[in-house]
């Protein structure tokens, strides 16, 4: 489904944020990336849909290297890669249904997208997805009036509107209360198990990873230091993932 090989990235051309990262993600599985702050988790996730241009390596999505695509092809590929964010990144003055429909912009012509001309099939799909995430009665609410947990669920519905093969989640629960955390994680788990979508999540909470993940990738200082099934994640493994690296200048700090 998704295979990352020898990925490398440096923001300033000097300090390496990623050095030789390789891993792969299976359909129908929840894969969690854990690691200390500044380890490079966000950089990995954003390289996958090329919001960040990485320096070197291969990112095989459906057997084509995303890094080699031209603009139009990249747009095509992005259509099948959903993404949700810690601060939701919804268009706040617009309603929930409008934000969900943004998920199909990638398949529309420029003009149809600009003037919000959606097909009936797409409107039905959007309503169905809002129902799926439990927000049917909020379809016409402005997103700025929704709670954090509700916003994140709109974010998930927007990602699902893309009919994605994979969903990238950058700390999706970091700003949520415990109850919303469970709602959101249950939805993501369900997408993997029942819809066969690959779910790749950056997380800070090891206990959440334990209850929801199939596979864990541990990142420390831009390198993969753990890559195994969740059952293999022992306390010593966790300690080594969060270990403070001797040659990084204090950027690696265990956050909680």
């Amino acid at each position: 489904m998704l295979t990352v090989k020898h990925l490398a990235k440096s923001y300033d051309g000097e300090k390496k944020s990623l050095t030789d990262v390789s891993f792969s993600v299976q359909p129908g599985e929840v894969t969690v990336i854990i690691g200390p702050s500044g380890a490079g988790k966000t950089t990995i996730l954003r390289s996958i849909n090329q919001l960040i241009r990485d320096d070197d390596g291969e990112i095989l999505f459906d057997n084509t290297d995303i890094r080699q695509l031209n603009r139009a092809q990249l747009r095509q590929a992005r259509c099948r890669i959903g993404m949700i964010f810690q601060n939701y990144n919804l268009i706040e003055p617009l309603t929930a249904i409008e934000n969900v429909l943004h998920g199909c912009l990638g398949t529309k012509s420029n003009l149809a997208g600009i003037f919000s001309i959606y097909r009936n099939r797409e409107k039905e799909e959007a309503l169905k997805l809002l129902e799926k995430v439990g927000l049917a009665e909020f379809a016409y609410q402005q997103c700025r009036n929704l709670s954090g947990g509700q916003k994140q669920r709109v974010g998930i519905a927007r990602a699902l509107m893309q009919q994605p093969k994979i969903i990238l989640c950058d700390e999706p629960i970091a700003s949520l209360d415990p109850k919303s955390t469970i709602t959101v994680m249950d939805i993501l788990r369900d997408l993997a198990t029942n819809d066969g979508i690959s779910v790749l999540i950056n997380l800070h909470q090891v206990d959440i990873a334990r209850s929801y993940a199939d596979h864990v990738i541990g990142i420390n200082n831009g390198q993969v230091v753990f890559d195994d099934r969740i059952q293999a994640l022992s306390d010593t493994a966790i300690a080594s993932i969060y270990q403070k690296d001797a040659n990084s200048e204090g950027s690696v700090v265990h956050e909680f």
Partner: protein
Amino acid sequence: MNSDVQQVTNFFNTKRLRLSIILVIFGLAYIGASIGLGFQTQSLLNVQAGIAWLIHNFIPNEASQGYWNEIIQQLFRTFIVAVASTTCAAVVSLFLAIIGAQTLTPAITVSWVIRCLSSLLRNIPIVAWAMILLFSFKQNDLTGFLALFFMTLGFLTRAFMETIEDFGTEKIQALQATGATYLQVIFQGLLPEIAVALMTWILYMIENNVRDATLVGLLTGTGIGFIFNLYFKSLRYGAAGLVVLSVIILVVAVELISNLIGRLLS
């Protein structure tokens, strides 16, 4: 511990010293400027006599009531010029701001050119704009319109550009991640988010331009500024006072309306 306390004391002493120095510098600047201009501070005491003269002559009397018709006509013309120039400039500004904002610019050189252009337009005083344009466009409403247009274009481009840059890249990227095109991101993401801020700037600029249009009219011989000049030079002070009064009423009305619209928007 003691040395810590000493450090805090020193901190405040330095701060006080700095403030005193600044005050002394302002004082010296005032004295220097007074001497340079031959301005005598005690002449401020005679200001009340001047004000009394103003009040006596400029209070509109019965004779000036006959001018209402002409004043309202010209006031309306001035208002239209101000609104038209602002709205036209706003449309062009929005386009320039989008391709000039660092977060959305197609090329960093484009951003630079637009930044310089808007700075240039903005920093030429409105009076200078009017004088320059008078050469090519002579005394008519178009000259005033263009002077306001160029100044507003410079100002709004800068203001819009900052609004767009404050909006950040995260939400833009979130839409790009769905495969949306550049134009789709702008119309579906950027514009809905910044619409209220844009309206606020435009309303502010209309207020400002109603005031400036009066001044520009004085130079270009059009609108309310022109008749003020006319009455004033022909010693019809009462009528001139009426013009000032009407401009104040208009500006306050515009401000009230724009506040109302602002409240409805948010």
